[in-house]
C-alpha cells in the first residue's frame, strides 16, 4: 500500500476543480443553449463533488445535505431553463446563443 497512494480528499477536490473549469470553458465556447445548460450542470456537479469530499474530510454531514439541496435546485433550474428554451424555440427554431443578440450595446 505504501507504494501506492490512497486517494485523499485533495484528489477529489482537484478533480472537481478540473470539472468545474471544463464547465466554465464549455459555457464560453458552446452555442447551443441546451449544451450550455449541461455545462452549468457540470459546474454544479463539481461543486457537489467538492462538498461531498470536504464533508468526508471534515467528518461533517452538512456537506452532504447541501448536495441534496443543490440537486433540487439543479432540477428546478433545468425545468425553468428548458421551459425558456421551449418558449423561444417555438418562435425561433434552432436558435443559438450567437443569434440572440437583439439586445446589445
Amino acid at each position, binding site marked *: 500500500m505504501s507504494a*501506492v497512494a*490512497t*486517494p*485523499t480528499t*485533495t*484528489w*477529489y*477536490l482537484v*478533480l472537481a*476543480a*478540473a*470539472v*468545474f*473549469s*471544463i464547465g466554465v470553458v*464549455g459555457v*464560453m*465556447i458552446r452555442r*447551443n443553449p*441546451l*449544451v450550455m*445548460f*449541461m455545462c452549468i*450542470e*457540470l459546474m454544479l*456537479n463539481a461543486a*457537489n*463533488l*467538492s462538498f*461531498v*469530499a470536504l464533508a*468526508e474530510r471534515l*467528518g*461533517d*454531514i*452538512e*456537506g*452532504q*445535505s447541501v448536495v*441534496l*439541496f443543490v*440537486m*433540487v435546485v*439543479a*432540477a*428546478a433550474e433545468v*425545468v*425553468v431553463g428548458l*421551459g425558456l*428554451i*421551449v*418558449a423561444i*424555440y*417555438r418562435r425561433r*427554431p*434552432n436558435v*443559438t446563443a*450567437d443569434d440572440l443578440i*437583439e*439586445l446589445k450595446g
Partner: protein
Amino acid sequence: MIELFVFVAASAMVLVGALGVVLRRHPVHAALSLVLTLFGVAVHFVALAADFLAAVQVIVYAGAIVVLFLFVIMLLGVDRLEDLRIEPFKVQRPVAVVVGVAMVSLLGIAVAVSSDTGTATPGEGVAVAGFEGEALHDGNIIALARNVFGRHVFAFELTSVLLVVAVVGTVVLARRPRRGEATSDGAAS
C-alpha cells in the same frame, strides 16, 4: 489499491464525460456524455461515504434531469450539429482556453495545498453510529436525514418554494400567446 483504481476509473469517467459535454457536436451526444460524468460522480460519492447521495445522483440527475434534456432535444428537434470549428468571435476561444487553464491551475493550487490532516476538531462524521458505536448500514441516511430535517429544515422548506416557483414559472412560460395577438418583434431595439 482498490480505492485508487476506483478513483482513477471514476475520474476518467467524469473527465471524459465532461470533455464530451464540451466537445461533442451533437447535443444528444453531449447529454449522454453528461450522463457519463454524473455516473462517475456517483461512484465518487460512494467512495466518499455518501451512499444516499450517490443514489439520488443517479436517480435524479441521470435519471430525471438528463432525460428531461433529451426529451427537450427531441421535442424541439434540436439535433442539428453544432460546428465547433467555426467561431464568430475570434478572441472567444483563446480566451476560453486561457481562462480554462488559468482557472484549473488556480483552483487546483488552492485546493491542492489544502491539508487533509489539519482538521483539529473533526466533525461528527458523515454517518450515525449505532448504540455501541458500530457502523450502521443506514447510518449515512440517518445522519443526512437528521441534518436535513433538523438543522436545515428551513432550507428544506425553502426548496419547496423553489419548486413552486419552477412549476409556476414553467406554466407561465409554456403558455402560448393567444392567436391574433400581434408581436412586437424587433421593435425593442
